[in-house]
């Protein structure tokens, strides 16, 4: 509770939390709040590329659809890509890091070497290679991001676990006859939680940026999916005249990533008192 209270007292972090909350609400309520909910797949060819107006606050696109409505539906795609990809990465990375850190030795070393291989190449490059091999679709973007992102969590948890397992409370628990699994899940994992949470919040922002870049490069969902990255690439041939077409999704990405970054910064300040207010 005190964490939440402190979070709310930090202006930047609460702004971040508000943005994310807004995004989630918008994604859920898109069919009700979008002025033209049908415009994800319905087109009005006579109204192509109209500038922003009272009817279309962010203008219309190359098919005459309402940019704002499509943006709201795009939030659903963005948020599901980020949540699933990061979720899968955490689900793969955390147990691996935990096991490798706790047991060490050859199996632990092997797991960590595997993650090193993934880390040797920048994430977006690896994700491009994977997404390209699998073919363009939202599912494959999620898969590519998950496959390239888990080592970050594995490494993080591995380092923490490695340090924690030598601590007295772990030794005490073991002395009292707790099983390895119990120690890992009940004693070590909770102590790595704050690092995981901070990493996850910032990781969401990074994932959204990478996913948008994949969409921009044509590796994401096909048309007429209102994914933000692909909307920007669609809009490109209509610049500079139809400036609203690219500006709207770009600003949306900016806002959402900013939200996650602010929240992540705030969480770190709170969860890691050492660096509080010396924050970066």
């Amino acid at each position, binding site marked *: 509770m005190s964490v939440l209270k402190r979070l709310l007292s930090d202006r930047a972090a609460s702004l971040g939390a508000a943005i994310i909350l807004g995004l989630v609400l918008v994604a859920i309520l898109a069919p009700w709040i979008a002025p033209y909910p049908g415009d994800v*797949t*319905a087109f009005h060819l006579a109204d*192509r590329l109209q500038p922003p107006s009272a009817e279309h606050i962010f203008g219309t696109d190359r*098919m005459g659809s309402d940019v704002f409505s499509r943006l709201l539906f795009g939030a659903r795609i963005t948020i599901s890509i980020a949540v699933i990809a990061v979720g899968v990465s955490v689900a793969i990375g955390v147990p691996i890091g935990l096991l490798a850190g706790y047991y060490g030795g050859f199996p632990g070393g092997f797991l960590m070497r595997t993650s090193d291989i993934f880390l040797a190449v920048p994430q977006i490059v690896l994700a491009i290679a994977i997404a390209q091999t699998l*073919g363009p679709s939202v599912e494959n973007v999620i898969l590519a991001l998950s496959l390239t992102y888990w080592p970050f969590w594995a490494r993080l948890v591995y380092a923490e676990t490695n340090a924690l397992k030598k601590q007295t409370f772990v030794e005490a628990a073991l002395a009292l006859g707790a099983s390895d699994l119990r120690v890992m899940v009940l004693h070590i994992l909770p102590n790595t939680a704050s690092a995981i949470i901070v990493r996850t919040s910032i990781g969401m922002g990074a994932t959204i940026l990478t996913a948008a870049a994949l969409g921009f490069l*044509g590796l994401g969902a*096909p*048309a007429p999916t209102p994914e933000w990255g692909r909307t920007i690439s*669609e809009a490109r*041939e209509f610049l500079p005249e139809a400036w609203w077409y690219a500006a709207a999704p770009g600003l949306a990405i900016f806002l959402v990533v900013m939200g996650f970054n602010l929240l992540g910064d705030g969480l770190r300040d709170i969860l890691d008192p050492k660096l509080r207010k010396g924050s970066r």
Partner: protein
Amino acid sequence: MTSTKTFGNVDRRSILKMIPAAALGTMAFPAMGMAAGGAGGRYVHANNSAYDTLDPHTVNDVARVASRLNFYDGLYRWVDNPPKMIPWLATSHEVSEDGLTWTFQLRDDVTFHDGTNMTAEDVVYSLERMLELKQGAGSLFIPMIDPGQTKAVDKYVVAFTLKEPSAIFGSLVPSILVVNSKLVKANEVNGDHGQAFLIDNVAGTGSFTLSRYDPARGFVGKRYVEHFAGWGDNYLDEIEFRTVLETNTRIQGLMSGDYNGLDGYLAPDQVERLRSSGKVQVFEQESMRVFHIAMHNGRAPLDDKNFRMAMVHAFDYDGYINEIMQGTVARNPTILPGNLWGAPDVEGYSFDLEKAKSYLDAYKAEHGDEIRTLKIGTLAGFSETEQVASLMQNALAQLGIKVDIESAPWPVISTMMQSPDTMPDMVPYWKSTYYVDPNNWVGELYGSRYAPTRNISAYHVDYVDERLEKALVITDQDERAKLYEEATRRIYDDAAGIWIYNTKWYGPYTKNVKNVRFCPVGNGQDMRWSYVED
């Protein structure tokens, strides 16, 4: 501001005038623009894809046509619109009584860029190389001629012996681009037919010689002064074809004068933008590039005519042509370009969801209400195919049919299309001109002999096959026209595809570019006739 070679030359020219004549000898620049009579000049073209190979025999696409047309020559040459074939490396030909042997008389005054005289041996080597590499235009010849069946009858006479008589071999002859056999053989590595050499080098007789090449950038060609066809009063001294992937950048660059010309198949919004800038001239020509949605006629429910009739009435032709394409293209009711002989005079199917629904009801009465989800494949990066698929998806949703759109790069889609098992239910794409004969469109897409690799429609109807086959062997054009007309009409009646429009070519050039000679085969990139006015 951007400094470009185009501007650079102007500067250079004025600088040159100031430099004493003695100093000129040490300068590496060509003395371009210094010749009297307004001749000469430099042309910079921005292309939408990379010139990653200069080999004339491994690719046969529009994207890389410029290197083939400007560095190499064929036996005959396509020019103008409507396209006509003019004698080129060969002066004439005759066909044997049985229609199998085609004998070409070659010019004796043709030299390659290294000065070697071109002979029949070079033609033999070139065709054998095409058959051997099985890429590019070679695949057009493989069905009709076997390796070893091309003979040098005389130093300047070459004979091709075909497997069966062919009415279209003649129109393929311009695709036999002749390479310098001595030079290529000298550069063969491990029997690669000189592929490693020709990818970066030119061994042709063409109008321009290669002076610079960078696969990441493009190429520069210099006028081949000794070209056998000679040069008139006006010509280009230098051509540069540069890769500029972004449409927007190409447009901006043309308007600012960085480039002199672009590929002519721009979206109408772009054409409008260029026109209104006042800095660009846009040549308009009806091309032969039919945009259509290929349908898989062999897979249920598309194997049923009622269902296909529902499909052809479910596309918003007018909305697409008038709004998205802003009326810049002409409706084309069948697969044959309307401006080609043999095209039947029929009215295009209309967008009419009521009609579509009644056809669909007829289908359901026979086959039940259950209709599976259809799959449309689109070409990644080609927004027109995406827009067409989106419109189709929307219209079919109104008919209660669900559509999945799957996007993939062209090489992937084209591989999928070549097998009836992997061909999506529908694929929107362009059928371009590889040779100017109805067979290029109707024969290859709906004739059984081309199944499954080129007849991707899985359309097999005896009535049509009989006519298409007959048209391939007889040579009388009127008779052939009638056969193609009948076949195409039947295909139209069967609603075997959704035919949308025939492309117009809007060639955008800076105002000083003169005498662009457009031909659907060369897409306005055959630069030997053009020049830049000072």
